[in-house]
């Protein structure tokens, strides 16, 4: 019980931490790092939900009667990690191309630069 409960709490705290960084940091890459932490927290929360006290992994070949972890949340999370990598690569590509065009990564200045470009 304590293992999954502490992990679930940590997951929630990580989501809050990452979200805080997402709001407070002004640079694009730092925001993405915050999002990274938040995503890790969400994944951890789901994994903690799948766990039961004294559980074994959802694999066969264990003795009868041992409770097993729930495979469904784990399966959902598995693809989430991969998709996170793909979307992260895409957003970093966007960040690079924005930096290339507007010469800044700070969100405030990015908005200004974008407005200037629109006027032109």
């Amino acid at each position, binding site marked *: 019980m304590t293992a999954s409960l502490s*992990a679930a709490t940590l997951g929630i705290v990580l989501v809050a931490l990452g979200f805080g960084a997402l709001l407070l940091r002004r640079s694009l890459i730092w925001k993405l*790092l915050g999002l990274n*932490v938040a995503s*890790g927290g969400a994944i951890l929360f789901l994994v903690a939900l799948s766990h039961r006290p004294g559980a074994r992994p959802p694999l066969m070949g264990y003795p009868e009667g041992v409770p097993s972890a729930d495979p469904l949340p784990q399966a959902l999370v598995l693809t989430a990690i991969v998709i996170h990598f793909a979307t992260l690569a895409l957003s*970093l590509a966007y960040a690079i191309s924005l930096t290339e065009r507007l010469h800044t990564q700070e969100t405030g200045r990015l908005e200004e630069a974008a407005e200037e470009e629109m006027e032109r």
Partner: protein
Amino acid sequence: MTAVLLSVLALTLAAVALTRRRLLWGIAVLGVHSLVLAGLYFSLAAPDVALTEAAIGFGLVTFVYLLSIRRTGRIVVAAVECPGLLYPEGEGAVGLLWELLRELSTRTHRELELRWVERDEVQALLSTSEADLAAGDLIPSAAEAHFPEVEFLPTRIVRARLGPGPLGALRGSREAELLPKGGRLFPHRGALLSALERGELGGVVVNLLELRTMYLGGKLREAEVEPLEDTSFSVLFAPDEEELARTLEEVVAELRERGEWDDLVRRYL
């Protein structure tokens, strides 16, 4: 038990990673955080997730971040305050050097991050690569001669004497090395000026720009000025930033070629 310990570790690492100033450190610590998370998944009976997290979250994500920051990373500038060259204004600065640094930032696609420091901190910051370059009221001292440098503005170090008493200079600067015996060193310009005000000093060893600022500030009006050394203001770079130094040299050369350099010097000095 393992899960609780790993949880605490993961939380600490995430907090450390997100509060770093340098992006590189943040990314590195976050990679370790990912690895700890993988261990946590394993201890929560999810070996599939742990394997995927270790391969992707720890390996690939960290690597993609590292590849992209070279293109978007910052130039950390150790800035020594100097009116006319580099002086804080809002989040940025004004001055001749600020124009140069902005051009450098545009050309390398790297953002500037200014850190206002005292003169005697420069050497440590550069040698640990904590700052990529140092600029401002900066004439390289003998101890700093091994850093790559770009000289951009000739100046002169002078001795300005008001009366009897010891001479003063800024600690860590070239001026301090030219100070005659018995001179006093000060950590920053404010301390130097207030000592001068209180009459503890008989004069100062400064460069021409500072002399002008002090003169305009009403001090040193009756001083007797004597030149000590002809030298020039420089931008100093961390040992591994020679490429950046070359780029700045190109910037200065191009500005001179286009004839904009003299306008800039006239506008700020």
